[in-house]
C-alpha cells in the first residue's frame, strides 16, 4: 500500500474488531467519571435557575440561604467575582455566568449555593428569593418579535451562497420542480452522564475534573477567564459518559464551579441535574428549511435552493448550517443557492449536536429528493446515481475519495431493494401492517484538528518491551482508548497486549476537541508523526553501538516490526527494541511537532481536495393501519469513512447513530410551555428516546479505501455520519407505507392522523 506520509504504512492489528480496553471496567462500575473525581473533602454546589424566560432580576434576597445550616457561600450576580470574557472561541455563550441581571432564557443560572453536603446545598437553594421584571418571551421561529440575523459563516464556509442562476434554471422549460418546507424541533442531547465539574485551587493553581470533549480548550478558557497561565490550570477527564456535542464548548457551570471553589477555599463538586441538562449545555436548535429542486426529464438537477432557519438565544453562538452541511456537497448541479437565517429567541442557548447542520440538512434535502423521485417516477436510488457528484458543488474541488455509488449498490443488495414495489401502500406485513421501504444518502465532512501525541517505549521489569501512547484527547464513550491502543501497537510493531494509551489530561501532549468526528483522524495523524520521531530517537540510540546492523540508515529507512527496529527494505537487518532500550533511560519517546497539519494549514496538495464521507441508509418501517404508530423493522447502513481502525467500535458508532436518528425521526422533541418558555418534558420519562424494543435489526457495512490524502492513517472519522440521512430514510419509508408525507419531525401518531 502506498503511504502518503512519512510514517510506516498501517498494518495489522489496525482493522481488527477489538473489544474495548475499558469495557470490563465500565460494566463493572470501576471507571471514574468527573463527578466521581478522587478529590477529598469536596463540598457541593447547586445551581439556581431562572424561572422566567425574559426580563431582569430586580431583587435577590439570599439572607436566609446564607443562614441555612451548612452553607458556605452563595454566588449571585451581585457578588460574583469579576471574570474576564476572553478567548471567545472556546465559549458556548457570549456572556459569563452571573455577569449581569438580565434574563435571556428560562433555566439560566442565576445563583450558586455551596454547602458542606449536597442535601444542604439543595435545600438552601430553595430559600433564595428572587424578584423579576418580566417581559413577554420570544418563542419559536415564527415569533414576529424575534430579531433576525443572516450570518456570514466563519468556521463553516459561506452560509449565504449562490452559484449560477437558480431562479432562471427553475423556470426553464420541461423542468420538474419540488418545493417543500421541512422542520425539525429542538432536540436535546441527553447523554447518560450529566455534565459535572470538580474544581479545587492549590497554591494559586487550579485543577478541574470536567466532563468534557476538550480538556485543552477547557484549560485555555479557564486560564484566560481566571487570569492564569495555561500551565497553572490542569483539566482531567479520563472518561465521558456520552456527549454528542453538549460537552464541546465551554458552558457556564465549569466557570461557576471554579469560582465557587475559589470563594470557599475548598474543592467544589457541581453536577447539572437532568433538568438542567435541558438548559445548561445546549441542544439542537429548531430548524425550518425550504428546499426547491428543479430537474430535467432524466432527473438531473438543474437547480437546488436550500433556505434554512434556526434559532438561538441572544447570548448563544450557534448557527445550524443545514444547507452548508448538505446541499452544498451532495449532488451535482450547475445552479446552487443556500441561505441561513438565525432568529433570536428566549430559549436556552443552542449548540452542536451530533452532525450539526448535516443532520437536519440531510433530513430536508433527502426528503425532497424522495419527493422529486416520485414526481419523476424514478427509483430513489437511480435519482441519486444520476446526480452523483465527483466534486463538491460549492467549491468545485474533487473529493479525495468517494465511494457513495458502492454504498448504494451494497446497501440495496443487502436490503433487497430490487423487490420494492414503488406504489405507496402496496406492501404489507403478515399481520396486515403497512410496510414501507425508504432510503437516503448520508454525508459528513472529514475534520482534523491540530493535535500532538507521544509514544514512549520502555522495558518492563521482566525485560519485555512496552509502549505507552498518550495525547490530551478524549474518549466520549466511543472507543478512543481502544482505537488508539490499536494504533500505538501498529505504529511500534508490538502486540496489542503490550500497549497502553493515556488520554483525558491536559498535562499530556495537547490534543484538540473531540468533535466533528475528528478525534481518530487528528490524533491518528499526530501519533503517526510521533512514531516517526520515535524511530529517529531509537535509531540514534541503536547507532551508538558500533557495528550496529542499522548503521548508516536514516529514520525514513527503518520501521518497527515484531518487537524490532529494522531496515525497511531488509527486515532481516535490525535489532531488538529491548536491546536498544537496555541500560538506557527509563523510556525513549517520540513527540510530534506542535501544531501539525490541521484544518487551517493543510499542506498544499490537500488544498486541492474536498474531504467528505458518504453513506447510504435503507430502512423498512411498519405502520399499523388503525394506530398509525411507526416502528422501524430493519435498517441497512453502508458507510465509506476511509480506513476503519476497529470495525467493532466503528460499527457501534453507526448503529448508535442510527438509533439516535430513529429517535429523532419518531420520538424526540423538547417541548416548551407556550407562555413561560420553560421546558415541559425535562426528564427521561417524558423526553422519549429509543429503548431496546424499538431497536430491531441494524446491519452496518463499511466500504471504500484508506483516504491517505487526508492523513497518514487514512481514516476520516465515523462518529456522526450515521445520524445523517436516517431521519429522511425513515420519513421516506413512512410515505411509502402510508402515502402520507410528514414534513415536520418527529413523525408521531397525531401527524399521521391529520386530515390529508
Amino acid at each position, binding site marked *: 500500500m502506498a503511504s502518503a506520509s512519512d510514517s510506516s504504512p498501517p498494518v495489522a492489528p489496525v482493522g481488527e474488531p477489538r473489544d474495548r480496553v475499558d469495557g470490563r471496567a465500565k460494566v463493572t462500575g470501576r471507571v471514574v467519571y468527573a463527578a466521581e473525581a478522587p478529590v477529598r473533602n469536596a463540598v457541593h454546589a447547586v445551581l439556581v435557575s431562572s424561572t422566567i424566560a425574559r426580563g431582569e432580576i430586580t431583587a435577590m434576597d439570599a439572607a436566609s440561604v446564607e443562614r441555612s445550616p451548612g452553607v458556605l457561600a452563595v454566588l449571585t450576580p451581585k457578588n460574583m467575582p469579576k471574570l474576564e470574557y476572553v478567548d471567545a472561541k472556546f465559549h458556548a455563550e457570549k456572556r459569563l455566568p452571573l455577569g449581569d441581571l438580565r434574563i435571556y432564557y428560562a433555566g439560566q443560572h442565576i445563583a450558586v449555593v455551596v454547602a458542606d453536603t449536597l442535601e444542604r446545598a439543595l435545600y438552601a437553594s430553595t430559600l433564595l428569593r428572587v424578584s423579576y421584571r418580566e417581559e413577554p418571551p420570544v418563542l419559536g421561529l415564527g415569533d414576529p418579535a424575534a430579531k433576525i440575523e443572516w450570518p456570514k459563516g466563519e468556521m463553516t464556509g459561506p452560509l449565504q451562497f449562490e452559484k449560477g442562476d437558480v431562479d432562471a434554471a427553475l423556470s426553464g422549460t420541461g423542468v420538474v420542480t419540488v418545493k417543500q418546507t421541512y422542520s425539525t424541533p429542538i432536540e436535546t442531547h441527553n447523554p447518560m452522564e450529566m455534565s459535572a465539574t470538580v474544581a479545587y485551587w492549590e497554591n494559586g493553581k487550579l485543577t478541574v475534573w470536567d466532563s468534557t470533549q476538550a480538556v485543552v480548550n477547557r484549560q485555555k478558557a479557564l486560564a484566560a477567564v481566571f487570569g492564569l497561565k495555561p500551565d497553572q490550570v490542569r483539566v482531567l477527564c479520563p472518561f465521558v459518559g456520552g456527549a454528542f456535542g453538549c460537552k464541546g464548548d465551554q458552558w457556564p457551570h465549569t466557570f461557576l464551579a471554579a469560582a465557587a471553589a475559589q470563594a470557599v477555599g475548598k474543592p467544589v463538586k457541581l453536577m447539572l441535574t437532568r433538568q438542567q441538562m435541558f438548559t445548561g449545555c445546549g441542544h439542537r436548535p429548531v430548524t425550518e428549511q425550504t428546499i426547491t429542486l428543479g430537474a430535467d426529464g432524466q432527473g438531473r438537477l438543474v437547480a437546488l435552493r436550500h433556505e434554512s432557519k434556526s434559532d438561538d438565544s441572544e447570548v448563544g453562538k450557534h448557527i445550524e448550517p443545514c444547507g452548508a452541511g448538505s446541499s452544498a456537497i451532495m449532488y451535482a448541479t450547475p445552479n446552487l443557492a443556500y441561505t441561513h437565517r438565525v432568529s433570536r429567541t428566549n430559549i436556552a442557548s443552542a449548540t452542536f449536536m451530533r452532525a450539526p447542520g448535516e443532520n437536519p440538512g440531510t433530513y430536508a434535502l433527502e426528503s425532497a429528493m424522495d419527493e422529486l423521485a416520485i414526481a419523476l417516477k424514478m427509483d430513489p436510488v437511480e435519482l441519486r446515481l444520476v446526480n452523483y457528484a465527483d466534486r463538491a458543488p460549492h467549491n468545485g474541488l474533487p473529493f479525495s475519495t468517494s465511494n457513495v455509488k458502492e454504498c448504494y449498490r451494497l446497501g440495496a443488495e443487502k436490503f433487497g431493494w430490487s423487490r420494492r414495489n414503488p406504489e405507496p401502500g402496496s406492501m404489507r406485513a403478515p399481520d396486515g401492517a403497512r410496510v414501507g421501504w425508504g432510503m437516503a444518502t448520508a454525508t459528513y465532512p472529514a475534520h482534523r484538528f491540530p493535535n500532538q501525541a507521544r509514544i514512549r517505549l520502555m522495558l518492563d521489569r521482566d525485560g519485555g518491551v512496552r509502549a505507552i501512547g498518550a495525547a490530551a484527547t478524549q474518549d466520549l464513550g466511543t472507543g478512543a482508548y481502544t482505537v488508539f491502543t490499536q494504533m500505538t501497537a501498529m505504529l511500534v510493531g508490538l502486540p496489542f497486549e503490550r500497549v497502553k494509551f493515556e488520554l483525558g489530561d491536559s498535562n499530556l501532549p495537547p490534543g484538540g476537541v473531540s468533535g466533528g468526528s475528528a478525534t481518530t483522524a487528528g490524533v491518528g495523524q499526530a501519533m503517526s508523526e510521533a512514531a516517526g520521531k520515535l524511530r529517529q530517537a531509537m535509531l540514534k540510540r541503536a547507532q551508538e553501538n558500533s557495528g550496529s546492523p542499522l548503521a548508516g540508515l536514516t529514520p525514513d529507512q527503518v520501521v518497527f516490526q515484531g518487537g524490532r527496529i529494522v531496515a525497511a527494505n531488509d527486515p532481516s537487518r535490525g535489532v531488538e527494541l529491548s536491546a536498544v532500550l537496555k541500560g538506557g533511560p527509563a523510556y525513549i519517546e517520540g513527540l510530534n511537532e506542535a501544531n501539525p497539519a490541521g484544518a487551517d494549514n493543510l499542506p498544499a496538495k490537500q488544498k486541492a481536495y474536498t474531504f467528505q464521507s458518504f453513506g447510504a441508509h435503507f430502512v423498512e418501517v411498519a405502520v399499523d393501519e388503525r*394506530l398509525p404508530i411507526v416502528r422501524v423493522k430493519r435498517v441497512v447502513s453502508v458507510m465509506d469513512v476511509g480506513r476503519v481502525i476497529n470495525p467493532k467500535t466503528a460499527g457501534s458508532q453507526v448503529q448508535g447513530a442510527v438509533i439516535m436518528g430513529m429517535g429523532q425521526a419518531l420520538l424526540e422533541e423538547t417541548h416548551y410551555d407556550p407562555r413561560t418558555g420553560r421546558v415541559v418534558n425535562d426528564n427521561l420519562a417524558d423526553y422519549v428516546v429509543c429503548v431496546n424494543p424499538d431497536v430491531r435489526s441494524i446491519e452496518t457495512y463499511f466500504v471504500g479505501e484508506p483516504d491517505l490524502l487526508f492523513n497518514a492513517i487514512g481514516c476520516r472519522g465515523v462518529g456522526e455520519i450515521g445520524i445523517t440521512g436516517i431521519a429522511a430514510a425513515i420519513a421516506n419509508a413512512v410515505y411509502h407505507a402510508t402515502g402520507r408525507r410528514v414534513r415536520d419531525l418527529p413523525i408521531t401518531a397525531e401527524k399521521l392522523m391529520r386530515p390529508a
Partner: protein
Amino acid sequence: MNNFSYILAAQPDEALRDWTGPGRPAYLAGGTNLIDHIKLGVDQPQRLIDVRNLGLDQIEALPGGGLRIGATVSNTALAYDERVLKDYPVLSQAILSGASPQLRNAATTAGNLLQRTRCSYFRDGLSPCNKRQTGSGCAALGGFNRTHAVLGTSERCIATHPSDMDVAMITLDAVVRLRGVSGERTVPLQDFYVAYGEDPAKENVLKPGELITAVDLPATEWFARSYYFKARDRASYEFALASAAVALDLREGLVRDCRIALGGVATKPWRAHAAENALKGTRPTEQAFRAAANAELSSAVPRAHNGFKIELCRGTLMQALQTTAALA
C-alpha cells in the same frame, strides 16, 4: 432542611397508630412515586411509615375462589403469578406493559393504585396547579397538554391517571380492602376513584390514615378471556397514550357479558360502561366494536394537543376487542 423521620412498622395496626403524631405522615411502599414527589418538592411528608414489613406481601387463594393480593406484593410478583397468568391474563399483561423491570420489582400493588398523575405542571412544583395547590389554576389547560385526559375532565384539571395495572383491575371487578382505626371496609375499585370534580386534589375515597391492605379479585371464569392493549410512542417504558383492558364472555357467537376499561385517556382508570352496554348481546363484529368505542368516546373533550387521543383510543379499544374475541 426538610427533615423527615422513617418508621418501619411491623403490624398494620402499628402503622395505623404511627399515622397519628406530629407532622404530616405518609405511607411508603416501593417509593417509586412518593420519593420522586419528595425530591421534586411536590410532597413534603415529615414522617414516612414504611408499610413493606406488614406481612401484606402474599397472593392467596380465597375460599370461594378468586385471589387476595396483598398491598405490598410487588408488581413483578403479581404479573408472573401462575394463577394471574391463567385466570386474569389482562392483569399480567397490563403490569408488564408498564414501567421497567427495575421499577416493577420495587413498585407495589397499593402504591400502583395510589400513584399520581404524570402531568408535568403538577410535577414541576412551580406552575399553577389545582391538584398541587387548591385554587391556583391549571397550567395544562392553556399549556402543552398532549398527554392529558379527554374523559372525565373539568375546567379545573385535565390530568391523566397514568396506571396500567388499575385499568386491568377495574375490568376484573377488583375490590379494595381498607383498614382504618375504626376497622376494615371494602370498596369496589371502580368506586374507589373519583373523577376530579370540585377538588382535583381528591382522587379517591381513601380516608386520611387509611391503609390499603389488599385487593380481592373474584373468581369469574370468563375473565380468562381477557387482554390488555397499550398504544404509546415508543415500544416500551412509556406511559400509555391510550390503553384498553377487555374481558369478554363469548358464548354461541354472542357477547353475553363484558368488562371494558380505558387507560391513558381519562382522569381515573376508566370503566367504559357505555361501551359495555353497547356491546352486550351483540355479535363480536368490527361494526359492533366500533359502535362500542363510539358510545364511550362521544363524551370525550379534546384540548389543544391531545385531540388525536380520541381517535387513537378508538383504534386501541377496537384492537383490544378484536384480539380478545379471537382468543381461543
